[in-house]
């Protein structure tokens, strides 16, 4: 295993962490099941590729532009989610994924089935950055995304989204503008998926519609659920584990997918709230009880006695 190989794996893991965290805003915080997240990953990648190749944007300018476009299209899905709810929404997002991949595949503007080749590597001060620095860049954006998620979860938006997740009717009845917050959640989640797409496109330098199909969406959802949705550590560790897993399972060669599927079944069956979720076995073992209880106990101990 060379260093180059590890750098590549590290970059992919980082991109998956960003994708999983961004989906977590939609599914974990706001409770809206989306099974088409790879579409926004693709929108980010294609936008950035086209902006740098055809419009002459630099990587640094294309990145926010791609995020904004992915966010806007995501907000569109948010509007759809106001009308189509629950499991209907889950299936509709599968459909959106298919339709968007079809658009990439069948229009010449997006390069058709062959995709887009020759995407530039980002330049910094006129120099091509090395693979290792690219990994650092991805790592930087992982930290930014995680910090952003942390801010959301601590803000009013986070509280509102949690209320919508638990009981939408009650939230609406208590005067919360559910429509607004749902659209915000979709826009934010999809914008960060777009960020993942930009990082992917400029790392691979070659993208095809195949990179953003429904199985990719399912992988992202599986990472989130296996890690533990609704938390920040869950998606990060879940993505880390499941993106590294195929590499770790490499010695099994022919039986890789068998084990991969089996592990998903096993983990969801016995740790349905995620390996690192609220009531997870691992967290309980490490801290003696679940995290929330540990923290509230510490707060109580530090505070005044009532």
């Amino acid at each position, binding site marked *: 295993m060379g260093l180059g190989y590890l750098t590549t794996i590290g970059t992919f893991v980082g991109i998956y962490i960003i994708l999983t965290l961004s989906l977590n805003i939609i599914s974990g915080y706001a409770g809206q099941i989306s099974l088409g997240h790879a579409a926004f990953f693709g929108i980010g990648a294609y936008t950035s590729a086209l902006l740098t190749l055809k419009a002459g944007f630099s990587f640094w300018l294309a990145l926010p532009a791609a995020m904004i476009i992915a966010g806007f299209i995501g907000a569109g899905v948010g509007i759809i989610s106001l009308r189509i709810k*629950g*499991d*209907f929404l889950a299936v509709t997002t599968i*459909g959106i994924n298919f339709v968007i991949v*079809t658009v990439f595949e069948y229009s010449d503007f997006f390069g058709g089935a062959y995709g887009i080749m020759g995407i530039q590597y980002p330049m910094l001060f006129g120099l091509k950055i090395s693979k290792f620095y690219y990994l650092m860049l991805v790592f930087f954006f992982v930290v930014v995304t995680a910090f952003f998620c942390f801010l959301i979860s601590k803000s009013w938006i986070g509280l509102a989204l949690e209320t919508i997740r638990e009981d939408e009717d009650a939230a609406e009845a208590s005067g919360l503008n559910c429509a607004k917050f749902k659209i915000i959640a979709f826009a934010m989640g999809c914008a960060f998926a777009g960020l993942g797409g930009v990082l992917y496109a400029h790392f691979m330098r070659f993208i095809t519609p195949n990179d953003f199909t429904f199985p990719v969406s399912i992988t992202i959802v599986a990472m989130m659920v296996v890690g533990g949705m609704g938390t920040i550590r869950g998606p990060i560790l879940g993505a880390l584990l499941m993106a590294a897993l195929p590499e770790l399972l490499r010695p099994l060669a022919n039986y890789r997918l*068998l084990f991969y599927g*089996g592990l*998903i079944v096993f983990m*969801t069956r016995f740790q*349905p709230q995620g390996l690192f979720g609220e009531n997870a076995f691992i967290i309980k073992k490490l801290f003696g009880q679940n995290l929330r209880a540990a923290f509230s106990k510490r707060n109580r101990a530090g505070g005044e006695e009532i």
Partner: protein
Amino acid sequence: MLQQVVNGIIIGSLYALIAVGLTMVYGILRILHIAHAAVFVSGAYLGLLVYTYTQSLILALILAAVGCSIFGWLIQRFLYTPLLTEARIVPLIASVGLFILCEDLFRLLGGPYIRAFKVDLWFDKLIFFDTVVTAHQCLIVIGTAACLVSVYFLINRTKLGLAWQATAQDMDTAKAMGINIKQVINFNFIIASSIAAIAGVLTAINYNSVLPTMGSVPAYKMFAIVVLGGLGSIPGTIAAGLIIGMAETIMSAYFGFIMPRDAIAFSAMILILIFRPQGLFGKGV
């Protein structure tokens, strides 16, 4: 034109057969049962296995149905029932995991290549004017009709079917009224899985092929059909299956490749859902 309609009906009735099981599972457990496609593929393999040894199509259909009922029941008992109290997305992911596992298992057991499933019937084809209906197509229509009629009778004319309807409407109330929920769920999975098995055998005969990945397109396309029919509604699902089968066949025959076949179902679904969020035949949410 008539030829395309016939082909559309054949594809549509196969879709309807697979989707009916899915909608039944959703109706009771509210789980999007992706692994239903794995049951469907295992039906095709079991059918092929029995047919190569016995050369009897009836026996192949029956044994495939029995085998898949057991498979479906095992999925229900050991995977879904323990996860019923969790967030909706958890059983869905478990189901996806099971589907990945099964697809690989079929590849390892059955080999990664396409196996032929050649069945000779006692006539070859019927010709009405310019329209050709092959014997296999007749078999599919008869098989589908038989399955759907028996589902209709089981659900509308038996005591267990009545209990099924009550449970589909409101599981808690049904439980409070003394309905044996466990029995209803078992019944549900046995029916749904055996229909999937029959659909698997019929599909394999129609395309004269059995391969490990034959379930990957139905796995998600069926959801478009089930949702279009209004999740949980059996007549709606049958109608939606026929409509999608017809639309796909006619569109790809007359308009060529504007979009791939598989995208048609989803485009139709999104368009219809925007105007009718509860599906074509669904009751209000």
